[in-house]
C-alpha cells in the first residue's frame, strides 16, 4: 500500500480513527451516566471504514451517512464540538438541537445527512450523484450503509438507477455482521454483500474493514472509476461493532467469544502497532497526538455541556423556509 509508507498520511489516518473512537467512547460514557438521551449508535470497532473511505474523496465530494454516523461525520471534517452539542440537544449543535445524533448534516463539508430510516440515504446519495452529473461539477458521492440496509428495496432501486445511468457514486457497505440482533446470513443468502453488484453489472469488491489501508485502496479505486464517468461500484468492508446496536443493548444475540475475537482485530490497535513497528512515529509522538485528541473531545464535551438549550420558540421554526407561523398554526 503506497500510502502505508507515507508517514504523515498514516498518522493522519490514525488521528482521525482515534478521534472517532474517542468521540464515540465519550458518547457511550455520557449515555451511561445519563447525560445523553435518545438512541446512541457508536461505531467503535468500525473506525477504519469511515476514515479510510472519507480519505479517498476530496473536501468538495459528498457523503450520505446512517444512524451509525458519528464516524462518517468526523471523518469528513465534522466539528466534534458541534456534534457533541447536537448529541446534547443544545442550541449550538449542528442542527440547533433539533435533529440529534441521527440527523447531523453539513452541506459545506459535503455531509448530506445522517438518517434514522435504514436504507433511506441510499437513493439520496444517488440523487446527489445525479446532481453532480446534471451540473457537470465532477463531485463523487460516497454512500454509507450497513449490511442489513442492503436488504431494503431502496438499496436495489438506487443502485440499479446509479448503475444504469453510470452515476458518480460509491456504495460503501459497512458489514458488521448484524442488523440489530439479526445475523446477516440468517436473512441473506449470499456470503458477501459485494456479490450483489452482479445484479447491476457494476464492480463489487470486498475490503478488510478493520484495515484502513484496505478500505482506502478499495474506495480510492471506486472513486477514480466514478470520477472517470464509468459509474458506481459497491465496496463491502467487513468489520464489527464492539458495542451493542445502541448503547444499553444487552447483546444476547451474540457470544462473548465472537466479540473478543473481533476485538483482537481492533483497527486502531492494529494501525498503531504498524506505525510504531514501521518506525513511522515514536511512542512519544503517538502519545502526544492522542493527548491532543483527548483534549479536543474533552473540550467538545465542555462546549456542549456549557452551551445553552434552544429556546422554546425554536420548536416552531424551520418547518418551512418562510411563513412558519402561519403554516404551523393551521
Amino acid at each position, binding site marked *: 500500500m503506497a500510502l502505508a509508507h507515507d508517514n504523515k498520511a498514516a498518522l493522519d489516518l490514525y488521528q482521525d480513527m482515534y478521534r472517532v473512537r474517542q468521540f464515540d467512547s465519550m458518547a457511550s460514557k455520557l449515555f451511561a451516566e445519563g447525560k445523553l438521551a435518545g438512541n446512541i449508535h457508536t461505531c467503535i470497532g468500525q473506525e477504519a471504514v469511515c476514515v479510510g473511505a472519507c480519505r479517498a474523496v476530496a473536501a468538495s465530494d*459528498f457523503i*450520505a451517512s446512517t444512524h451509525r454516523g458519528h464516524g462518517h461525520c468526523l471523518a469528513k471534517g465534522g466539528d466534534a464540538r458541534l456534534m457533541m452539542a447536537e448529541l446534547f440537544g443544545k442550541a449550538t*449543535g*449542528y*442542527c*440547533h*438541537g*433539533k*435533529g440529534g445524533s441521527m*440527523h*447531523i*448534516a*453539513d*452541506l459545506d463539508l459535503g455531509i*448530506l*445527512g445522517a*438518517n*434514522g*430510516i435504514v436504507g*433511506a440515504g*441510499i*437513493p*439520496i*446519495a*444517488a*440523487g*446527489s*450523484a*445525479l*446532481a*453532480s*452529473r*446534471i*451540473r457537470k461539477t465532477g463531485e463523487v458521492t460516497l454512500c454509507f450503509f450497513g449490511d442489513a440496509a442492503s436488504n431494503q*428495496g*431502496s438499496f*436495489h*432501486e*438506487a443502485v*440499479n*438507477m446509479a448503475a*444504469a445511468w453510470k452515476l458518480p457514486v460509491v456504495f460503501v457497505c459497512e458489514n458488521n455482521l448484524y442488523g440489530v440482533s439479526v445475523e446477516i446470513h440468517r436473512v441473506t443468502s449470499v456470503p458477501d454483500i459485494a456479490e450483489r453488484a452482479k445484479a447491476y453489472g457494476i464492480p463489487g469488491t470486498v475490503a478488510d474493514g478493520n484495515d484502513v489501508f484496505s478500505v482506502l485502496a478499495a474506495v480510492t479505486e471506486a472513486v477514480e472509476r466514478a470520477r472517470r464517468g464509468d459509474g458506481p461500484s459497491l465496496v463491502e468492508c467487513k468489520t464489527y461493532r464492539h458495542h451493542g446496536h445502541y448503547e444499553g443493548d444487552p447483546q444476547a444475540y451474540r457470544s462473548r467469544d465472537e466479540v473478543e475475537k473481533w476485538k483482537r482485530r481492533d483497527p486502531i490497535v492494529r494501525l498503531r502497532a504498524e506505525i510504531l513497528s514501521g518506525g513511522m512515529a515514536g511512542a512519544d509522538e503517538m502519545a502526544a497526538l492522542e493527548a491532543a485528541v483527548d483534549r479536543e473531545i474533552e473540550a467538545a464535551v465542555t462546549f456542549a455541556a456549557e452551551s445553552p438549550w434552544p429556546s422554546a420558540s425554536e420548536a416552531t*421554526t*424551520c*418547518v*418551512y*423556509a*418562510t*411563513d412558519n407561523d*402561519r*403554516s*404551523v398554526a*393551521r
Partner: protein
Amino acid sequence: MRTINYGKAISEAMHEEMLRDESVFILGEDMGVMGSVFGLTRGFMAEFGADRVIDTPISENGFVGMAVGAAIRGLRPVVELMYVDFAPLALDQIANQAAKMRYMTGGKVKVPLVVRAPGGAGRRNAAQHSQSLDALFTHIPGLKVVAPATPFDAKGLLKSAIRDDDPVVFLEHKFCYAMQGEVPEEEYVVPLGKADIKRPGRDVTIVAWSRQVIFALEAAKTLAAEGIEAEVVDIRSLVPLDFETISASVRKTHKVVVVHEAIKRGGYGAEIAAQIMEELFDWLDAPVKRVAGLNVVIPFSPALEDAVFPHVPEIVAGVKEVVR
C-alpha cells in the same frame, strides 16, 4: 384571452420554469421518450436533453429519494408519480425525508422538490388507480400541498411550487386535464396559500378544491335558479391554508358546506370543518356540512363508481340541508 386545457397549462408551467432556471429538471416514469402517459412533457426530452427529462425505472421510493438528494444539492426536481395511488410506495422519502429535512437539520438543508401526482376517480381505473390521497400529505408537517381546479390556477401554482424552497405535493385531477380555461400568454404566478373566490354569493359558503370546484360551480348555478346564492371558495392550497378567506365568507353567509372527492373519514374536509367550528362557532347558523366520498374502496364497475364520490346533485342536496 386564449383558452387552453389544464394539462397544457401544467405542461407550460414546467416548460417555462425549465427555460427560466437551469436547476429545474424532470424525472419520473415515461416522462421522456413518451412525454408522460398524459402527454404533459411531450417534446421536452428533445428540447432539454436526457439529463433534464429523465425516464426512470419503476422504483417510486428510489426515484423520489433521488429527487430529494438532488434537491438537497440545490437542484429543483419536478418528479411525477404517475398516479397518486403510488405515493404510498414513496411515502418514506416524501414524509420522513423531504418533509422533515429542513427541521431536522435546524434549517441547514432545504429540499426544493415538487411531487406532481394525478389522482381522482371516475375513469374506471379501479381501486388502485383512482384514489384522492390529499389527507396523506396534509397531515405531514413540512410539506406544502396544492390542488388546483382550473388551467389558470394549475399553471400559476405549479410555477410557484417549482420556485418554492420547500417540498410541495402538487395534486392534479385526471378529469381536469381536458378542461379548458383562460390562461394568459404572459408570465404570471399564483401564490401558494391564497384561496380564490370562484363565485361570490351571500347565502352559503361552499369550500372546495380540485375537481369538486367545477362541480360546486355547477351546483351553485342550479341553486341560484332556486334563489340560493352560494359563494364558492376554492382553497387551491391545502397547506398553507388561507383560512382568512374562508372566515370572511363564513362571517357573511353563516353556513358552510365543505366538499371533497376523497373519502370522508379523515379527509381534509374534517380539518376545515373543525377549524371553522373552533374559530367561527358563534357565526354559524348550522353545523358545517361535509359532502365527500363514501368510506369505501373505489369500485371498478361503471354501475358503481360514480356513486361513491360527490357530483353536482350531492352538493346541491348538501347545500339545501344547511340552508333550509
